[in-house]
């Protein structure tokens, strides 16, 4: 790891100012992804701005929403009694991510900025447009079992690795950020972006902006929810495909529904078409099978990951079935 300077930010505005002064500076919170990337020389900042001293750790239940500070730890949110009660889908998704040691370190803000786990991104001997723009993509035509099936481009087929973000995309969350030009809100589904010709940009955050909080509006998805994560081993592995399903059911009829998938795209993949299809319909095994089929419409495999097309259909149907049966 290249040596660096580290400064401790005392306020969010000083953090933004401190970072903006240097070209090669980065914020550090939990560091679970950043320190790893620095060890591998994939990122090599000259300066780190340690934001752990900032007052951004609180989970606040406000009128009509919850506000989760960007520095709240993943385990803190996953095990918060009120989060489990009011936003159980988020708690389930968080508990499915990483290991407890990492969840104790990782923060909500940092989780959103987690880099892809595409093996070509991690292997500095291989081309990767995300790591080195215009160097090519090793995954297209290479080993691409983990790769995306939606929203891909000729330059990148990497997937976003977070579980938490899949739940947040489903739950209509908003991201609160602060930058040199002031504060702004970003709809969660607009936060991460598709690769296009600039896969090095993971999100729509300005490089000088700091995530301060995530807000989730109140909803009726407190019972019939499920986060299904399909992976190569029982625990502590990234998703091949994951599904966040939330149902609001009355008399066997779907009043309202939210659906998003992980492991299938460069961003958490919200399934709005399937949501429209399910709304107002009566629950049945066949309905959920149709929903699974509809969800994978337009998906495209790259060889090794063709199995995700069938797996995705089945995973959506399974997640809906489990959610409905709770």
């Amino acid at each position, binding site marked *: 790891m290249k040596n660096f300077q580290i*400064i401790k930010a005392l306020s969010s505005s000083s953090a933004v100012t*401190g970072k903006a002064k240097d070209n090669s500076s980065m914020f550090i919170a939990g560091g679970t992804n950043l320190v*790893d990337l620095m060890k591998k020389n994939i990122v090599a900042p000259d300066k780190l701005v340690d934001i752990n001293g900032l007052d951004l750790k609180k989970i606040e239940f406000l009128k009509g929403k919850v506000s989760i500070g960007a520095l709240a730890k993943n385990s803190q949110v996953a095990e918060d009694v009120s989060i489990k009660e009011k936003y159980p889908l988020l708690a389930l998704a968080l508990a499915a991510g990483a290991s407890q*040691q990492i969840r104790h370190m990782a923060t909500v803000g940092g989780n959103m900025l987690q880099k892809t786990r595409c093996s070509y991104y991690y292997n500095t001997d291989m081309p990767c447009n995300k790591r080195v723009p215009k160097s090519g993509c090793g995954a297209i035509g290479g080993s691409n079992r983990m790769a995306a099936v939606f929203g891909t481009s000729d330059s990148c087929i990497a997937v976003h690795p977070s579980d938490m973000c899949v739940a947040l995309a489903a739950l209509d969350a908003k991201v609160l950020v602060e930058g040199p030009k002031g504060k702004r809100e970003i709809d969660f589904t607009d936060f991460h972006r598709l690769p296009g010709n600039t896969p090095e940009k993971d999100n729509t955050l300005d490089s000088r902006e700091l995530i301060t909080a995530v807000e989730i509006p109140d909803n009726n998805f407190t019972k019939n929810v499920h986060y299904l994560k399909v992976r190569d081993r029982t625990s502590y592995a990234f998703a091949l495909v994951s599904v966040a399903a939330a149902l609001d059911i009355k008399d066997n009829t779907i009043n309202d529904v939210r659906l998003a998938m992980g492991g299938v795209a460069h961003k958490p993949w919200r399934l709005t078409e399937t949501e429209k299809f399910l709304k107002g319909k009566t629950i049945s095994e066949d309905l959920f099978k149709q929903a699974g089929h509809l969800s994978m419409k337009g998906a495209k495999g790259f060889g090794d990951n063709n199995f995700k097309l069938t797996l995705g259909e089945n995973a959506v149907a399974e997640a809906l079935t489990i959610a409905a049966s709770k």
Partner: protein
Amino acid sequence: MASKKTNQDKVTPEDASSRRDFIKKSGLFTALALTPPSLVMASDKKWDEKIAEYLETVPLSIEVNGTKHNLNIEPRTTLLDLLREQLQLTGTKKGCDHGQCGACTVHVNGTRILSCLSLATMQQNAQVTTIEGLSKGKKLHPMQEAFIKHDGFQCGYCTPGQIMSGIACIKEGHANSREEISEYMSGNICRCGAYHNIVDAITEVKEGGKEI
């Protein structure tokens, strides 16, 4: 990561405190700059090696297993390397060094974390417990006893991390069934396959109800 020769032996608390004051004074009003750029230049200009070493390091106060240390470290030093290479506490193991195996699990302020992914400089004034800090004199910690009884280690390399996680697992309230123990121990990888015995050991300590 390259490890710089430790200079902790040369540092008295007075030295450390005057260095802290010096560096604080050179900081910004809004942010405490620990390594001002002008000082990093020392090494670029090939000044005397000792001066360069002094200027490149940052002060760190940390308590490990009840002993306070005032150290000077490079910002890039991980907590794992600090423990093993500067403090000679080699009980905590370096497995993958990338957060994938859990061999480096320690408790920081009572919470289990991965020391390989923690920058030591970010653990200012932290209280760290490693495997060496569990026993009281010759009396082993109940979890250590249980691991021996149930043969919860085979090659033994992952064992310190497993024991630290096992204790945390109970303290966190996640040892209520074999399935839950397996899930919450999943960040600790045992390649030799002692998993079954590890779950037995944790279950026994949980059910034994001893203070841990």
